[in-house]
């Protein structure tokens, strides 16, 4: 019985079987991880679309006799707005105060408006005015109505007062899903008030004069003018409005009316990457050519691993190298000519990024060049071509897909790079327009996620938008990598 060899075979088969499954499992696991990460980013991005849209307009009453410079603060989100009434501002978050009594107003103000965003007219008693956190304005499309009361105290002298409205400076009605109308819904009894119905999108700022209503007692405070800011949908969905905002050119996520425009970040990232490729392409290809065509065998054996080692320098180290050497260097040279304000700029980031990707590009390009079969070189040589002619006319054209792959993979490496841009770009999310932008402070996608994710409020639109820009970046790198890999595979020579 020849059991020995058979057992050996069986054992080998078992190991084969296990290995096959293990390899397949790892392949599937890695694939799932990529898909899962993508799905996770996409899932968390939903918070970007889960949004409220503000009123964004300020409305106030103002005595006709008061100078314009003393115009009241017009803010529909602040719940109380009274002319010449100090001490009523500056309430804390969510704090509620009752509408000031006539006695309280005496000597302080003669004309008062108060806004209320909760409840309706019938059950306002006592009249509590709420003031929310200024950052979380009221949802213009919500269930709550925005009501505005206007009355004057008996001390008021004028026959009429001015109702003024204007949008907040930072408010962009284009990004809202609401059309707002300012309507007079209840005129005081016995006063011949004109109908007020103003489309705020069509007429975003203006004023009208109305006859004054004098509240003789505290009960009459709500008997005066009552206006409503009525919101009707524009037909644009929250998703549409969010996407519209996403492709705008301003990234200012922590302002009163946050802007989540991807464009400045995307453009900065792409420009830094393209510049880095442009800076890297010469040195990297020359290195690859030298290694594959000219370097003595021994030297190549040493140089190749060293160059690949360069690719594994932690990028934070490169960042500080940039900060200590490249930034002052650029300041001293380019900086003077172009008026650089700081060594940290788009250009600085691009230069150091080039240093980062030179080894990557050189190494992949060198592989591509060395994969050109011996037979092709022999063919060129046997025809009497000089080595320069053979490289230029035969080897480089043959290696072209591999060289493209090297550039694309370098691109993918650079575009997702966080640390270098974080440390060296200066960090201002400004739209890079014009040549000046090259030496100005800027900010890319990856570093923005890095900078802001630490301080972001969870599961809020800002948080969602950080995932959304991450998703965009991920999509770009995946596409670049897949294309690069495909090119590299096609370049692997078959003859």
């Amino acid at each position, binding site marked *: 019985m020849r059991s020995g060899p058979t057992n050996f075979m069986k054992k080998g088969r078992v190991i084969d079987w296990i290995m096959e499954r293990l390899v397949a499992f790892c392949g599937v696991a890695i694939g799932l991880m990529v898909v899962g990460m993508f799905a996770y980013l996409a899932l968390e991005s939903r918070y970007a679309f889960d949004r409220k849209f503000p009123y964004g307009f300020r409305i106030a009453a103002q005595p006709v006799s008061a100078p314009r410079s003393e115009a009241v603060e017009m803010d529909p989100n602040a719940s109380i707005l009274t002319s010449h009434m100090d001490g009523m501002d500056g309430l804390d978050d969510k704090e509620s105060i009752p509408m000031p009594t006539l006695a309280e107003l005496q000597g302080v103000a003669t004309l008062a408006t108060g806004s209320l965003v909760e409840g309706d007219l019938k059950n306002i008693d006592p009249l509590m005015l709420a003031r929310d956190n200024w950052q979380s304005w009221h949802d213009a499309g919500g269930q709550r109505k925005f009501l505005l009361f206007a009355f004057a105290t008996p001390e008021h002298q004028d026959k009429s007062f001015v109702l003024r409205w204007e949008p907040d400076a930072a408010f962009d009605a284009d990004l809202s899903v609401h059309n707002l109308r300012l309507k007079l819904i209840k005129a005081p009894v016995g006063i011949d008030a004109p109908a007020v119905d103003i489309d705020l999108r069509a007429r975003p700022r203006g004023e009208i004069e109305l006859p004054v209503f004098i509240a003789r007692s505290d009960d009459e405070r709500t008997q005066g003018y009552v206006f409503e800011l009525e919101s009707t949908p524009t037909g644009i969905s929250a998703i549409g409005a969010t996407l519209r905002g996403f492709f705008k050119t301003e990234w200012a996520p922590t302002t009163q009316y946050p802007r989540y425009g991807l464009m400045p970040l995307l453009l900065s990232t792409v420009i830094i990457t393209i510049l880095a490729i442009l800076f890297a392409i010469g040195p990297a290809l020359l290195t690859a050519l030298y290694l594959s065509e000219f370097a003595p065998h021994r030297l190549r054996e040493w140089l190749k691993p060293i160059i690949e080692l360069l690719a594994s320098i932690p990028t934070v180290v490169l960042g500080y190298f940039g900060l200590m050497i490249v930034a002052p260097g650029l300041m001293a040279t380019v900086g003077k000519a172009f008026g650089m304000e700081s060594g940290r700029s788009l250009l600085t980031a691009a230069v150091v990024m080039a240093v980062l990707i030179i080894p990557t590009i050189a190494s992949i390009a060198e592989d591509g060049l060395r994969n050109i079969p011996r037979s092709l*070189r022999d063919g*060129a*040589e046997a025809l009497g*071509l000089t080595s320069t002619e053979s490289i230029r006319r*035969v080897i480089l054209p043959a290696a072209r897909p591999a060289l493209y792959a090297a550039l694309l993979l370098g691109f993918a490496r650079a575009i997702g790079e966080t640390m270098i841009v974080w440390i060296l770009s200066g960090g201002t999310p400004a739209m890079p327009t014009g040549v000046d932008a090259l030496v100005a402070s800027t900010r890319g996608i990856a570093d923005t996620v890095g900078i802001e994710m630490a301080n972001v409020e969870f599961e809020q639109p800002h948080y969602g938008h950080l995932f959304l820009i991450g998703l965009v970046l991920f999509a770009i790198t995946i596409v670049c990598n897949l294309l690069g890999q495909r090119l590299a595979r096609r370049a692997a020579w078959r003859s």
Partner: protein
Amino acid sequence: MVAVASPVKHAVRAEDVNLYYGTKHALKGVNFAAPSRQVTAMIGPSGCGKSSFLRCLNRMNDRIPGAKVTGKFEVAGMDPYAKNADLMRLRRAVGMLFQKPNPFPSSVFENIALAPSLHYGIKGSTLEGMVEETLKRAALWDEVKDHLRRSALELSGGQQQRLCLARMLAVEPEILLMDEPCSALDPISTGKIEDLISELSKDYTVLIVTHNLQQAHRVSSQLAFFMLGELVEMGDTEAVFESAQSEVTRDYLSGRFG
């Protein structure tokens, strides 16, 4: 072929050639002469040095680390290993066809036109005429005339090899070195190449390395038998096949080893 009553002119002459790859002695004192405008076949078992010898003639061994050649050479009137040897001129005079077809990854036209345009500055319609004529000589014109701009890699293996042959002819060499040119081809393609070789021997000196004894018999008029780095026997093909001097040659030709 009618024998011409003139002294035999040798296109390739080599005396006492030794080739070392590092410590390996690959060719041992080879004396070789190939007459002009004839086909000389070089046969022998694998690793016998026949291909290495062929590659000495146009210095294709240069690139191999540790390769060292000694001996006297005369190839197309030049000494390849002279101090002032013009390697590029040598390789223009000595074309080479390889085991595997190795067309450049460019168009059919580009493949042929590249070297002449670089070497001789031929351009425009002259170049087009030259390409056409060269392709005709390689019996490929009819098959590719309608797609000269298509990639050479789309051609079949046999067509690719004939393209490489045309590419070699376009440099106007005197001597054609062929290193097992049919080993990667099917019998029909092989037949076409063999016909071409016979045709070309009217104008060129052809040295062909082959594993195929029948092929050597069919195409060559001179036969050189290599064995373990030595040139065992050389002479008229018919004569060697009929009555080889050396017993080793007889054994090899009769298929006793190989």
